[in-house]
């Protein structure tokens, strides 16, 4: 059989005379693997365990997330704590699938030039982040992170926010009508609150219209949804890997 197929005048030889058939067979060959992997994950409902406390991003956080994407912070920072003891020790509770249901796109990253940020929310005061973004070496000597002083100067552009929320709602993120319509006002209020706190901590004034407040809002939210869950001891620990078994 094998002989007949690949001999120099065998079946494969004839196939080489029919590029169309050859192309069709190639297409089938490359589709099989992908389909087998996707279909369960996309069709089977509940393939991702929902976690009750995980909520969509607020408008300002969403804006900060989009700045994070635009700056390419994900090229140096992962957001995916693996279920190893050393990672849990270093970063906190390992990441769960259910935490990422509103992540469009996912930002797990593939490189840790800097530390994982999945649990960075609440780790530092707002002002620390402002100083750190302005010049990382002011808070972390020897840091190799790029400075982002322009974030303290560039105005925050909120004009796309209502469309963003609307599109995300189309895709299934449960934003209310109120949030979609008043997205800009909500974001302004959030920005105001952060800017006041920065001032209270002795930081620069008037940041409420700047990009930095959006980034701070986003960073401070990261990983905090689940922290409440794990202390409440709810059934969020649905991860595949046994924590203790990891080396």
């Amino acid at each position, binding site marked *: 059989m094998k002989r007949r197929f690949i001999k120099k005048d065998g079946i494969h030889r004839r196939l080489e005379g029919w590029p169309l058939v050859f192309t069709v067979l190639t297409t089938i060959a490359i589709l099989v693997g992908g389909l087998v*992997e996707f279909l369960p994950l996309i069709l089977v409902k509940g393939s991702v365990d929902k976690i009750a406390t995980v909520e969509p991003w607020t408008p300002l956080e969403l804006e900060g997330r989009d700045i994070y994407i635009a700056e*390419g912070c994900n090229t140096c920072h992962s957001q995916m704590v693996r279920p190893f003891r050393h990672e849990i020790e270093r970063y906190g509770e390992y990441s769960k699938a259910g935490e990422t249901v509103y992540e469009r796109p996912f930002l797990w990253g593939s490189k840790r030039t800097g530390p994982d940020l999945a649990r960075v929310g609440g780790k530092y005061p707002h002002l620390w982040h402002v100083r750190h973004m302005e010049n990382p070496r002011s808070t972390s000597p020897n840091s190799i992170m790029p400075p982002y002083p322009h974030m303290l100067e560039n105005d925050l552009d909120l004009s796309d926010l209502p469309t963003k929320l609307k599109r995300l709602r189309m895709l299934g993120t449960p934003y209310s009508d109120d949030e979609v319509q008043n997205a800009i006002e909500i974001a302004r209020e959030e920005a105001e609150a952060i800017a006041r706190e920065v001032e209270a901590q002795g930081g620069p004034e008037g940041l409420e219209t700047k990009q930095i407040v959006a980034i701070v809002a986003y960073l401070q939210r990261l990983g905090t949804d689940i922290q409440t869950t794990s202390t409440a001891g709810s059934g969020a620990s649905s991860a595949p890997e046994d924590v203790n078994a990891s080396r």
Partner: protein
Amino acid sequence: MAHAQTTSAPGTRSTGRSNIEIFSYDEQITRLFVYATILWGFIGMSVGALIALQLPFPEANIGEYLTFGRLRPLHTNAVIFAFAGNAIFAATYYSTQRLCKARMFSDWMSQVHFWGWQGIIVAAALTLPLGMTTSKEYAELEWPIDIAIAVIWIIFAVNFFGTLYKRREKHIYVALWFYIATIVTVAVLHVGNSLAIPVSLTKSYPIYAGVQDALVQWWYGHNAVAFFLTTPFLGLMYYFMPKAAQRPVFSYRLSIVHFWSLIFIYIWAGPHHLQYTALPEWAGTLGMLFSIMLWMPSWGGMINGLFTLRGAWHKLRDSVVLKMFVVGITFYGMSTFEGPMLSVKSVNALSHYTDWTIGHVHSGALGWNGFMTFGMIYWLLPRLWRTTLWSKKLATAHFWFGLIGILMYVISMYVSGITQGLMWRAFDEAGRLMYPEFIETVTQVVPMYWVRLIGGLLYLGGVVMLMVNAWMTIRSAPKELPDPAYAAPVAPVHSGGDGRPGAAPASGDGTEERKDDLVEVAPSEAADASAASGSDAPGTKKPDGPGTKKPEGPGTKNAQGPGTKKPDGPGTKKPDGPPSLRETDDED
């Protein structure tokens, strides 16, 4: 008439004698892609060197738009889609025409493909520093550019398959199988991973979220490696390696087995990029198993490439092209051994997120993609421009600079990656993290970042040598470079039956060259021939039996007189058909 430009001549003409037609290959399109490859290679790797500097020396992050986070995607897009992309298009356009014994289906589509692709690259180079990105690795470009990519890719596909349709060679050679797999799969991957809902011209949200988005992205990302950086380069290898070595490919059988198993298995391996993440565990395990299985078909390709040189290893000494190919294929073998190893969960637990991945990437990228491309360019330069290579010494220097550069790059990243991995997981006797401050693990590897930078600069220096060599070679080219014309018996192979008369391959192996059915004619003669309505096309050399020597290429004759030596070894005649696929294990 006699000075008619064949570049503007239609691909095929009837000569009046019903069973002979004159056609030519479009060489200008290959020249354009070669130019673009060299230029973008230089730019993309300069950006690589800049980000390599920014890591140990953050002061090199200049202003708002040229920070590491914005330039890294620019580097990856420029080297993958501009440098490697233009290289595989050059290879495809050069070899497909010859393997099909037909001009490209449409010169117009070839031009649209070329300029469209360059436009896409320029758009990428502008939008990425401006922060317009989807953040998905190797698919960072926003939706309007994604649509442009899809359109240009479809034009390429139509042009390619159109050429297959009008081919004069019944059987498609193994290089073409790999091109077919590339074109089909890249289209599927690109569309599948780019599905998104636009918010504005420069921003969109993907239709997948979280775990699904991750799975789709790495189905794409891994297979971008597979079908953009591997299969087209295997096609390149299968055409240019036998050409340069003047030996038939090692094993026809092996090429069949490794082709089908490679393309089938590759698709499954994507989840190895997501080991120990929130992806369901079965998917990661599946990815790991298929990655290990992938080792064999990958090495099948390596063996077929390297053993093409069996009994002719001495040719390595004199030929830069072969040196480059052999090192390139060897690095392919190394990175496809390392890859399966990295996908094993316990190894990935250490290597993931570290510089080890970066070392793996660049052993493939600099060794395999880079060196195969350079080898091809050094082979093409004298042929496309009908002259001799300006400096063989400089080319040899490029080889050594490149090789030392790769080694410094890769070894420094292994050291740094393993150091990071071990420091992150180290506990002291009291069971506390040995290095609780992340920054300690950063400063530890900064010296390695400097070594990497030096390696990268050496490699880049090699590219500059290539630029100089190409520039000087092209300067010495004849002013006019008309496409050489060929005569072939009429009867397209797809018209049914067994193809044209005389198509039955003498050895039962149609991919080997048949010297008796394709005759090169001078372009002016071709023009005359088509004009002459008389019975005997003037100047068309008739085959006088098997084993006829081909006439020298017309351009060569004009430029340097008869008997010009081909650059790749003294006095060798280069057949222009497909490389022979006669294999040693075929005796039974």
